[in-house]
């Protein structure tokens, strides 16, 4: 949690405080970018852009909002806007709420998904579904905070998250079934 005092100092023109602030949020910014973009290089680029934007727009942050939410909004927007992938993602509707047979379920429950499989699955999600999952699990934001970040209604956030989870489940199931992860 970033100290309010540090933020105020940064906003009042203390450049050192501002740089310190950037260093404190650097990792969380990078992490979000990494999981949304699923690519180290892109994550670095996006994180750089995000930190620069925080630096230049620090005075537009208002204390009534959570600083973390404000920062995550910046990085998420950059990821979606600047790094919109041309690669098609799976349609979220196709596998809605459909589970495989019982056996598969048991097998899935028993095993831990490989991180790379999860990442790959996340990468398959449409942009906003992906962002919601990342903000929820990587940054541990609440529904309301995610809604703030992405400028979405609360119910839409829930809907995206629930569907995303379902979709991830199906994808991971496919991976395991198909032996993709070996």
């Amino acid at each position, binding site marked *: 949690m970033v100290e309010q005092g540090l933020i105020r100092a940064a906003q009042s023109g203390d450049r050192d405080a501002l740089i310190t602030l950037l260093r404190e949020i650097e990792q969380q910014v990078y992490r979000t970018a990494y*999981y949304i973009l699923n690519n180290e290089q892109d994550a670095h680029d996006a*994180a750089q852009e995000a930190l620069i934007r925080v*630096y230049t727009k620090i005075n537009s942050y208002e204390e009534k909002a959570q600083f973390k939410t404000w920062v995550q909004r910046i990085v998420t927007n950059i990821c979606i806007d600047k790094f919109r992938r041309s690669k098609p993602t799976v349609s979220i509707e196709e596998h809605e709420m459909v*589970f495989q047979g019982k056996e598969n379920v048991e097998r899935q429950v028993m095993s831990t998904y490989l991180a790379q499989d999860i990442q790959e699955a996340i990468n398959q999600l449409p942009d906003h579904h992906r962002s919601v999952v990342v903000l929820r699990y*990587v940054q541990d934001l609440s529904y309301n905070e995610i809604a703030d970040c992405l400028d979405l209604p609360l119910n839409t956030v829930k809907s995206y998250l629930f569907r995303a989870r379902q979709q991830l*489940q199906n994808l991971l199931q496919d991976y395991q079934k198909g032996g993709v992860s070996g």
Partner: protein
Amino acid sequence: MKCPEAVEWIHRYLDGDLSEEEVTRLKEHLRSCDDCARTYDVLKHLSDNLYQLPEVTPKFSIVDSILPRLDEIDRARDEEGSTLEVSEAEVPLMKSISSRSKKERTPFWRTRAAVPAALGTAAAVILGIFIYQYQPETIPNAEIAPTSQQTQLKKDTQNSSSAGAEVSTQVDPGAADSVPTPKDSSKQSSEPSADGVKKNAGAQGDAKQGGADHAATRTEKEGAAPPVSHKSDTKKSGSPEKTTTDGVKEFTSQVTEQDKSAASGSSGNRSMDQKKVDGTQTKQSGQDKSVVNKDKSPEKTQEKIPLAPDTNGFMGIMSSSPIKLSPDGKYVAEVEQDHLKVYLNNTDDRTLLSDITLNGNWVKGEWSEDSKTFSYQTSLNDTVKDYTYTVENNEDKTNSTNLSQ
């Protein structure tokens, strides 16, 4: 509870969004519904794995990698700001000056040199401020002085080569714009154009200071080169420190500077000195050299001359109503309209000692080294005349309050 709703509640449960009562109801349903129980297991498993995503970290510091860009952003912002006002501390004083003189030149502020120059002037200003406090009455002139100084400097550069018969020290009656070319030329004669250029550059910075103290400003202006002698020969150390602390000295040095420079080789000054004051000057010249050396920078004299030699240290440059502090700090000679007024410089105020009506326009004036006489020149119908005012109560250093007219 129906299954679709239960599934939704499972999701909400995983996000901690259910109330205690809702959790109870959900668990009841799961106990009785295998499908939903299975769904719960699957989703719970997935959610746990998602929480386990590795906390990736960047391979190198991202902040470090953007610092150069952040610096650029800061620079761009500063430049934007400096076009409106001086970026350093000397904003208030320099505003008028910079807007006037700077515009004519290449925007010094925009160059990289502006930053160190500004920093240098900032330091000088701070020093000047201390000196300022000794002579509050000179403050009103401060703003004018720098301006005139700047203009003077510019002109000086142009005229530096001209020997100029008359000492260019004249004061700038007209303040900023009035710097007459001839004045500059004479003064600056010894100065090489290079000096002038430097001075101008320095002046700009100095001007900012606003004449906190003439010495300081002069020296600052010179920038790196020691202000010591405007004369081409050297940029001796005109130790800026000297100037700041001793306005009086500068005064003397102005005169002496000229002498010095003469000694060093600029004949112009010498003759100028002669012209200035008959007896006093000559006496001083002999001493000037030494004085100059120890005082401030000869440059000051050079520059000061064109600007407003009569001003005291702080203003240094030209002011429309020149004020000159005696070297010992006891007396103040001030030109007001067509009168030369000499005051006893008390701690809190000053006592008028003499009020001399001037014949003609004020050219310049300087205190003698021993603070016993004040030599000045006025011009009438293009003729410059020298005058000397002797302070009558010339005892020791103690201030006395007799008024001598």
